[in-house]
C-alpha cells in the first residue's frame, strides 16, 4: 500500500500530523482538481434560488463556468457556460431570467433547455450539419433542494455519496414546514489561503472562544451571561465518505445570536412544539442543537439554529479560494424572528461581521507562515485522539476529512479511529409519518 508523504497518522503516541506542503504545493493542487473535484459530487446551488421558469445563476464549480437554471418547464438544469461554436461565454451576468441565451460573439441562440434555436447565416452550414446543443456536467442531482453536479459519469448516486450527511441535512431542512429557502443575496469573498484551511475552520469548535472573543463578549453583554462550557458537550462526528460534523447538545442552539423578545421566543417555541408532534421529541431535541457540517469536499452547512449558512468553497490556487455564502431560512417565520435571523447572519458570518473576518485573518496568517515550511513542515491535528468520545472542540472531524482526502490523493487508506459510539441526543431519529398520525 502506498504511504502518504502528506499525513502521519500515528495511533501509538497517538499523534496526527498534516504536511504543510498540502497547502502550498502546485502539484498537490493539480492532483486535488483531478482526483477529488473531477470525481466527486459538488454543490452548485439550492433549488429555491431559482424561483420561476427560465431563472438562472452563473457559478464556477471546480474551475468550470456553469449555468444553474430552470428551463421553460421549470426543470432544474445545469449547462456549461461556453458557446459550442467557438467558446465565448453565453451568460456574463451573475443571474437573471432568460428563455434564450444569445452568444454575443456570433449570435448563436440557445434555449433554456440547451437547444440551439437559431444561427445567423444558417445557410453557411450543410444540410447534414448537426447543430450542437449546450454541454452539461455528466450528472446533476439534488437532495432536499441542495443541487449537486458531478463531472464523473461513473460516480455513485448522490444519496449513497451523502451517506450520514443526509441525516444532518434533514435536521436542517425539517426546520420549516413550508420548506427552507435561500434568501435573496449572497456573500462573496476571497481568502488568500488554501481552501482546506477553511474546511478545517468550518468544523473547528476549538477556536471559537479564542478567535471570536469579541463576538462572545458581545453575546455575553446582550444575554447577561454566557456559558461556553456547553460547547464542550458537543460531539465530533464521522458521517462517512469524508463528510464530517460537530453537533451540539440541545442547549447549544441558544448559545449564539442576539436575545429574542418574549413574543419571539413564544413563536419559536410554538413552531418547535408543532415539530415535536410531527417528528417526535428525539428528533426535535437533536434539531435544537447547533451543528457544523462539511460535505466532502467543499460544501459547508452551519446551523446555529439562530441562522443557517450554506457556504461553498471554490479553490482558485494553492493559496487562494473564493467563498460564496447563502442564508437558508424558514419562510413562515414572523417579522421579529426573521429580523433577528438576518442580524445574526450579518453580525456573525457577514464579511464585515464579528466572526468571519477573524477566521479569514487566522487562515491568511496560517498561509503566510507556511513560507517557513522547510523549518516547520508539520501541522498538528491530534486533539482528542486519546479521548473515548471526541468532542466538537477536538480535531477528530478534521482527521476524518483528511483521511478521505489522503485516500483520494495518495491511495493510502488509513483505518478509522475507534471511539465510543454516538449516544444520547445525537442518535435521535425522526419518527415515521405513521407514528406521527397515530399520536
Amino acid at each position, binding site marked *: 500500500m502506498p504511504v502518504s508523504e502528506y499525513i502521519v497518522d500515528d495511533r501509538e503516541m497517538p499523534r496526527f500530523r498534516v504536511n504543510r506542503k498540502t497547502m502550498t504545493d502546485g502539484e498537490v493542487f493539480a492532483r486535488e482538481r483531478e482526483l477529488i473535484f473531477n470525481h466527486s459530487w459538488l454543490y452548485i446551488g439550492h433549488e429555491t434560488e431559482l424561483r*420561476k*421558469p*427560465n*431563472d438562472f445563476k452563473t457559478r464556477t464549480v471546480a474551475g468550470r463556468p456553469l449555468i444553474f437554471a430552470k428551463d421553460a418547464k*421549470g426543470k432544474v438544469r445545469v449547462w456549461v457556460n461556453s458557446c459550442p461554436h467557438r467558446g465565448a461565454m453565453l451568460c456574463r451576468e451573475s443571474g*437573471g*431570467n*432568460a*428563455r*434564450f441565451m*444569445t452568444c454575443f460573439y456570433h449570435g448563436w*441562440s440557445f434555449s433554456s433547455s440547451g437547444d440551439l*434555436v*437559431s444561427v445567423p447565416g*444558417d*445557410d453557411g452550414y450543410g444540410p447534414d450539419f448537426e447543430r450542437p446543443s449546450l454541454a452539461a456536467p455528466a450528472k446533476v442531482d439534488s437532495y432536499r433542494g441542495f443541487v449537486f453536479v458531478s463531472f464523473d459519469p461513473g460516480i455513485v448516486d448522490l444519496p449513497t455519496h451523502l451517506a450520514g450527511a443526509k441525516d444532518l441535512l434533514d435536521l436542517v431542512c425539517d426546520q420549516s414546514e413550508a420548506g427552507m429557502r435561500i434568501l435573496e443575496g449572497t456573500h462573496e469573498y476571497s481568502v488568500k489561503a488554501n481552501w482546506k484551511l477553511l474546511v478545517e475552520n468550518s468544523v473547528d469548535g476549538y477556536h471559537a472562544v479564542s478567535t471570536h472573543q469579541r463576538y462572545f463578549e458581545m453575546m455575553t453583554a446582550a444575554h447577561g451571561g454566557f456559558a461556553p462550557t456547553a460547547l464542550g458537550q458537543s460531539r465530533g462526528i464521522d458521517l462517512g465518505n469524508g463528510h464530517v460534523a460537530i453537533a451540539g447538545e440541545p442547549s447549544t442552539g441558544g448559545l449564539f445570536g442576539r436575545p429574542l423578545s418574549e413574543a419571539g421566543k413564544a413563536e419559536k417555541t410554538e413552531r418547535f412544539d408543532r415539530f415535536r408532534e410531527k417528528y417526535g421529541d428525539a428528533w426535535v431535541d437533536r434539531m435544537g442543537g447547533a451543528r457544523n457540517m462539511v460535505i466532502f469536499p467543499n460544501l459547508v452547512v452551519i446551523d446555529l439554529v439562530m441562522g443557517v449558512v450554506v457556504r461553498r468553497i471554490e479553490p482558485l490556487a494553492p493559496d487562494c479560494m473564493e467563498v460564496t455564502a447563502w442564508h437558508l431560512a424558514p419562510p413562515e417565520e414572523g417579522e421579529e424572528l426573521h429580523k433577528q435571523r438576518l442580524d445574526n447572519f450579518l453580525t456573525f458570518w457577514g464579511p464585515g461581521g464579528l466572526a468571519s473576518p477573524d477566521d479569514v485573518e487566522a487562515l491568511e496568517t496560517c498561509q503566510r507562515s507556511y513560507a517557513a515550511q522547510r523549518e516547520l513542515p508539520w501541522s498538528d491535528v491530534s486533539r482528542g485522539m486519546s479521548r473515548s468520545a471526541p468532542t466538537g472542540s477536538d480535531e477528530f472531524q478534521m482527521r476524518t476529512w483528511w483521511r478521505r482526502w489522503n485516500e483520494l490523493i495518495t491511495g493510502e487508506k488509513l483505518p478509522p479511529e475507534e471511539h465510543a459510539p454516538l449516544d444520547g441526543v445525537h442518535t435521535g431519529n425522526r419518527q415515521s409519518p405513521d407514528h406521527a398520525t397515530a399520536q
Partner: protein
Amino acid sequence: MEFLRIAPEISEVASPRGVLRVAEIKLGGVPRGAVVVLCDADALEQDAPEVMNGLAEHGYESLAVDLSSPGPARDDELLRDVAALLGRLGERGWSAEQIGLVGYGFGGRVALLASAEFGLGGAVSVAPTGVEVPPIPLRAPWLGLFGDLDGNVPPQAVRELREALDSGSPVHSETVGYPGVGAGFHRDAPKVLAHAAAFDSWQRTVEWLNLRVVPAAGTRG
C-alpha cells in the same frame, strides 16, 4: 449620419367590433421576430414610426395600433382586438411565442391584460394607465415600466402588483419605477431624469424581447 427610416404602411385588420387601422413594417430576410405595438390613445402617428423603426433595428417586424380609436370598448373586446392582430402576424408565419407585445399608456394596460391571455414570447407595458386587477396568472413574461410621478399608477400600486405577481404567477415578471417622471416617459426629453427614463426604458424593452421571444430558426417564407 443619416439612418435609413422605414415609413410604416397603413392597412386594416378586421376585429369583431370593427375595423382596426394599423401601421405595419415588414422586413425581408430572416427577421428576429415580430412585435405588436399598442400605442397610447391618439398617439399612433406620434409614436408608432419611432418605436417600429427602433424594433426593426433589432430585427423585429411590427404591427402598431391605437385600440382607443374605434371608440370605448370592454376589456374582453380589447383582447379580441389583440387576438385579431396576432392572427394577422400568424398569416405571416409567426407563432405566438415568436411574437412580442409592447404597449404604451392605454395600450400598456391592454398589454398587461393580454399577458394573461396569450402565450406570447414576452410583453412590456410602458406607463400603463391602470393595473387595478392584476390578471393572474400571467402566461407571458411581463415587464412593467412606471413613472414614479404617474398619478394613474402610484408606486404603492406598483408594489402591490409586484407582490401579487410574485406569489400568484408562475411566469417571470419585473417592474421598474423611474424617479422624477410621470406617464409618457418613453418620449425623449432634455431634462436629465426624463432623458434617462426614455433611454433606459427602451433598452429594457428590447432586452426583454431579445431574451424571450423565440427566434426564427432558418430562412422563412
